[in-house]
């Protein structure tokens, strides 16, 4: 066991950062790059410069929000309504970031680096972070996460830029396959990471009530509704299971 208060030497931190970088060279980054090429394609379609797409990946760092934003630009939609739609679609970052921060942050006062770590939270870094961080010594987790996430966001930005020039040229089926990496990766990553009955139920509820909720709740609010209802139902099961284990 590593003592909690122990501070890591800069050599250890550098090693952890490099290990994060290396660990990031894996399937998830390739799949994220496939998704981001499609974002680059949309940016080109709406007549924005390539750098704006690349900047959007570095700053917004959420493919669904980027798709909503540039889609709205292309449609000439209302600006305040678009800002609102982007805001709703990104609300998932509240529970996601709250869930991962206790794994990353260090004891003591909040540092600017904590905010940078929060900025780097995306679907890919969240799923992989929750899986990988518990195995990293506490005092090296920020360095490891920065290494891991900086490779992912860098590759994503690069792919957005490349996608600007190539996405329009690929056949429709290939374009669909590039987009399909998102649901394939996240469904299989989350299913293989599910441990408890509650984990399974959260995924199952989230998946199964979506077709119903989509018809009733206005777009944008549907995710929040499903997350709160599905997550809370799963939590009730978690509590009941825990009581059973204890008694």
């Amino acid at each position, binding site marked *: 066991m590593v003592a909690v208060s122990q501070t890591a030497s800069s050599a250890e931190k550098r090693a952890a950062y490099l290990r994060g970088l290396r660990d990031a060279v894996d399937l998830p980054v390739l799949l994220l790059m496939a998704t981001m090429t499609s974002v680059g394609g949309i940016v080109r379609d709406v007549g924005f410069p390539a750098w704006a797409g690349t900047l959007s990946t570095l700053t917004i760092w959420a493919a669904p929000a980027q798709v909503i934003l540039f889609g709205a630009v292309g449609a000439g939609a209302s600006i305040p309504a678009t800002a609102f739609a982007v805001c709703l679609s990104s609300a998932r970052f*509240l529970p996601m970031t709250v869930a991962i921060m206790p794994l990353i942050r260090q004891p003591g006062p909040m540092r600017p680096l904590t905010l940078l770590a929060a900025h780097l939270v995306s679907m890919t870094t969240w799923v992989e972070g929750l899986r990988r961080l518990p195995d990293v010594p506490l005092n090296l987790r920020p360095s490891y996460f920065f290494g891991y996430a900086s490779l992912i966001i860098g590759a994503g930005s690069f792919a957005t830029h490349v996608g600007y020039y190539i996405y329009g040229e690929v056949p429709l089926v290939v374009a669909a396959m590039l987009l399909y990496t998102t649901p394939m990766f996240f469904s299989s990553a989350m299913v293989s990471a599910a441990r408890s009955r509650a984990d399974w139920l959260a995924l199952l509820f989230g998946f199964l009530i979506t077709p119903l909720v989509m018809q009733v709740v206005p777009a944008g609010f549907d995710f929040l509704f499903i997350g709160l209802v599905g997550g809370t139902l799963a939590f009730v099961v978690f509590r009941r299971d825990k009581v059973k284990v204890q008694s």
Partner: protein
Amino acid sequence: MTFTDLGPVTALTALFVVLCIGWLPTELWRMLAVLAARGLDENSEILVWVRLVASALLAAVVAKIILAPTGAIAAIPLWGRIGGVLLGLLTLRYTRKSIVVAVLTGETVLLLAGTFGR
């Protein structure tokens, strides 16, 4: 005020759109989360609830991409979109949870559905 009112795309309008309409409304949640997470213990029960909410939310994101797709995926028949995920997830049972195999299986189903499905 619509995007059309902004006129031709200049560097300044592009910067405004990306940072003010895209980045700020997204980053808001991450920064709020840093505040909300202060003092939360790694093993606290409220964190379990938050994680389950996030999981259900991501499952809904996946479901919506498949059931109400935008862009190129919309050109693939529904059975291919659903079948790809289901068959991909099924392989997890038989491959020691290999995500590579699951993704490749799903993509193959999508390719077949897109090529022969219509």
